[in-house]
């Protein structure tokens, strides 16, 4: 008799028969199989007419769902495609296109134990609320101190990575929110260590600059539905405009910027280093650990960037823009935390960074939603997935030049609201590398400016 059970993120098979998926583990005297092959192994045994005593799963009880989720046409189409791919696959939809509802519908239809994996603590709260509002279910949470398992459970990528060995056999469906995170070296193992046969990935930005998204096909499924931001804009999402404003550094700032950049560039020239890709840059950072000259060059570059990003003229222009859009909801994005607090203190507006206490963050977002706080300034924490209700103006001060960041910041503004045109304004220091960053970004999205 064959027996199959779960062991710390893998499956163990005892018996006289191997499978195409298993590998003999001499340490325990059994075949060991990656957990994500669970469905494959069962199918293999069924086809081979082999009986197996399957003790792999240990599922929390099914609870009764009362759903009020109604999908739009494109959402229905996306879900159908996912069903057709045998309940696996990745859905690529722009922010605010209602990815969450598709996943909730899938849970309602399949009625199975589901683990939702999200990147941030805020998203845990958000999913929890959605599951409660739409499916009338209390969710379990595995994160930080909390550790409750229920039919629908929410966790972060970090917690899932840590606990996969314990919880890997307790779910039938995995929903990966912002699934592009899953492709990173560590997180990818989450997908390997769960037995769940059904898997859904959600993202607005499937492709990664390091190409690792190709790894997701095997573990989550192929992209089964993809809709462009332009196809949806106007119909389901609000239209938007984009504007770029160049400002000059003050003479003093310009001087610091140039002198610091000169140190950086001459070092690169001396060592004949070219920095074309993020990987090149990563290599350069590596050398700064043991090479004091390289480190000095890096520090000089950082000082230059900081001057450009924090430029006084930008803050003055920001003041003008705040006057100009007085009666609208504005989100200000910056690259550095320091600048968030500078702006917050100078204009006395609420700030959200990774340091903001959770309760206060909730309060700020809720007040922003109600229109009590018309402006919020933030660093990168709002980049992904978090519901920020219908901001109509986005002001970007300094960016990292990544494609994903751009799309999602844009997406944040595009909440469907009757007759609304969202505006994205990027304020860039002239003649600094920030222009190059901004240009690179637009080449990637193919957006005309």
């Amino acid at each position, binding site marked *: 008799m064959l027996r199959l059970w779960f*062991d*710390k*993120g*893998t499956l163990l098979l005892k018996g006289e028969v191997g499978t195409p998926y298993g*590998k003999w*583990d*001499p*340490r*325990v*005297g059994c075949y*060991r199989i*990656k957990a994500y092959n669970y469905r494959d192994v069962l199918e293999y045994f069924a086809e081979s007419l082999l009986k197996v005593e399957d003790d792999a799963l240990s599922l929390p009880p099914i609870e009764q769902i009362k759903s009020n989720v109604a999908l739009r046409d494109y959402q229905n189409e996306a879900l159908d495609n996912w069903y057709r791919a045998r309940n696996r696959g990745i859905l690529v939809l722009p922010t605010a296109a209602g990815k969450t509802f598709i996943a909730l519908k899938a849970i309602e239809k399949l009625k199975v134990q589901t683990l939702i994996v999200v990147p941030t603590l805020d998203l845990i709260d958000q999913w929890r609320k959605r599951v409660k509002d739409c499916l009338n279910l209390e969710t379990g949470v595995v994160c930080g101190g909390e550790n409750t398992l229920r039919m629908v459970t929410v966790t972060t990528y970090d917690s899932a990575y840590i606990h996969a*060995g314990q919880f890997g056999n307790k779910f039938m469906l995995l929903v990966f929110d912002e699934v592009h995170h899953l492709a990173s*070296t*560590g997180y990818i*193992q989450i997908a*390997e*260590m769960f037995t769940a046969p059904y898997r859904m990935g959600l993202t607005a930005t499937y492709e990664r600059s390091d190409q690792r998204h190709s790894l997701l096909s095997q573990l989550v499924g192929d992209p089964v539905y993809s809709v462009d931001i332009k196809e949806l804009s106007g119909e389901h999402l609000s239209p938007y405009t984009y504007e770029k404003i160049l400002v000059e550094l003050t003479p003093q700032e310009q001087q610091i910027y140039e002198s610091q950049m000169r140190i950086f560039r001459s070092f690169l020239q001396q060592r004949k280093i070219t920095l074309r890709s993020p990987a090149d840059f990563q290599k350069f950072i*590596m050398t700064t*650990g043991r090479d*004091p000259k390289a*480190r000095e060059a890096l520090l000089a570059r950082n000082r230059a960037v900081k001057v450009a990003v924090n430029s006084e003229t930008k803050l003055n222009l920001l*003041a*003008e823009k*705040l*006057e100009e859009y*007085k009666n609208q909801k504005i989100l200000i994005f910056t690259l550095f935390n320091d600048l968030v*607090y500078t702006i*917050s*203190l*100078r*204009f*006395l*507006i*609420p700030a959200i960074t990774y*340091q903001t*206490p959770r*309760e*206060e963050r909730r*309060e700020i977002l809720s*007040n922003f939603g109600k229109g*009590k*706080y*018309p*402006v919020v300034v933030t660093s990168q924490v709002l980049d992904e997935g978090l519901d920020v209700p219908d901001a109509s103006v986005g002001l970007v001060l300094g960016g990292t030049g990544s494609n994903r960041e751009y799309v999602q910041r844009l997406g944040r503004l595009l909440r469907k609201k009757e007759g609304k045109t969202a505006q994205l304004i990027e304020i860039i220091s002239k003649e600094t590398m920030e222009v190059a960053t901004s240009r690179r970004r637009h080449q990637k999205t193919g957006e005309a400016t």
Partner: protein
Amino acid sequence: MFPSNLLSVWKRKGEILPRYAKPSSSNDEAANTLIDVYKARIGEKKKVLKTVVTELEDKGHEYRFVRALSLLLDRKSTFVCHSKIDPIDLRRKIFQVTENLGIPTTSEKRQKILTTVASEITLTKEDVEESFYSDLESELVLEKFTEPSASELLEEYNLGLTQTLLFDATELNFTTSGNWQEIFRAIKKFGLIYEVCNDHGLWVKIDGPGSLFKLTRRYGVGMAKLLPIIIANPDWKINAKVLWKFTNEIYDFKIESQKYASLLKRPRLPSVIYDSSVELDFASQFQALTTGWILKREPEPVTAGKNVIIPDFSLEKAGIKIYLEIVGFWTEEYLLRKIEKLKQVEVKMLLLVNESLACEKLSALEKRPHIDIIYYHKKIPLGPILRYLEAKFEEVKFKEIALLESLPIKFTEPIVSFREFADRIGVSTEAARAFLASNLPSGYIAIADTLISNKKLLQIDAKIRENISRSGKLPLKEAAKIIAEEGVDDSANVLAALSYKIRWRGIDSDQAIVEPSR
């Protein structure tokens, strides 16, 4: 443990080693400087502290070293929010005022809002500015700092560095001198898998379930957490494979206690723990007896196939080692697993089994040659155990006597203790005693576990006689000294053998006098 960007290593010929901070005047100075920086900044903001620390970077010491030390000192510091008002409440108030008056895009407007709020909560405008973000990490104030010594700090640094390197380990091999129970408990807790082999001591190889499929650093964190438990022992060797992520190459990482123990912070070894009162009672009762058997709690693990068993006790005497396992109230599943393991054990093992357990399951073990079982009820009976041990010892003693009888034994020294003789041949003192009792070599006499040649005895006799005739009487003390000078400890028995009489005056041995008999 540090963020990986603070890890600093040497790599050469496929080997990798953290750049340990050895005790040197320069490293001590760096540590002391940083400690002083913290001490001097009590009452100041974290950002001030960190600015000073940043200034120290690259000034004669590598920035990663400085930052890691600073990180360790942060963990010995308490930072608190100093504010006259709860900053969250304050911000809420300000945002409310801003809501009514509009976003201040000019400096005048901003001042107006701050003044309004300040008067509302009866604080100054400066207080308001100061308190606005007083709860930010960088604005917190250093309240308390527990000062380490420079050497403690460096040892912590070196341990942290080693653990940080192990984050990237794909495999960890080690051998060590104790603390096994805790080590194996931790291996299980951290979701690791072990294999053991004997190679000049018990070596344990650690990786994880997923290691079967590919080299993975996934279990590195567990290995890093295991490290302090291993090196809590005085003797250890560590041999790990580290996957250096920047180059994707595997390196060997090897350290051992002889060279490295003094560099690393060594956690305190837990004191001996007893799992139950049954064990504790047994141990204390056994140790109260003088049996010659050495009882050890939690001895080294015993291999059982690919697994190990850590017996509750080991008992040692005369080269006999018997492991003792108390089978108390175990769940059936645990019992069955244990029995499977015990079947594979190849050393002598005595099981003390609680009668109320399902004993028929244990009968499978009764036929195993290495395993003996004694059943008990409530308390562990010493009698049967002592009889068992005695029997085991008798077996050995009998064999040893037979060995001695087969050997050509010749004595040349004037004095030989039984123990010396036993050690020389490699048998127990008991066997030597029994053998010599019936095979006393000619020309020797046995006095209190010592062989003394007749010649030597006559020399002693002559000296004593001379002393008595010279001074008329010889105090016992003097006689003992003379005998000791000749190399014999037991003066009383020697004097008796030479037929001297000891005259006591009271019980004070200083007053006793040696006289010739008759």
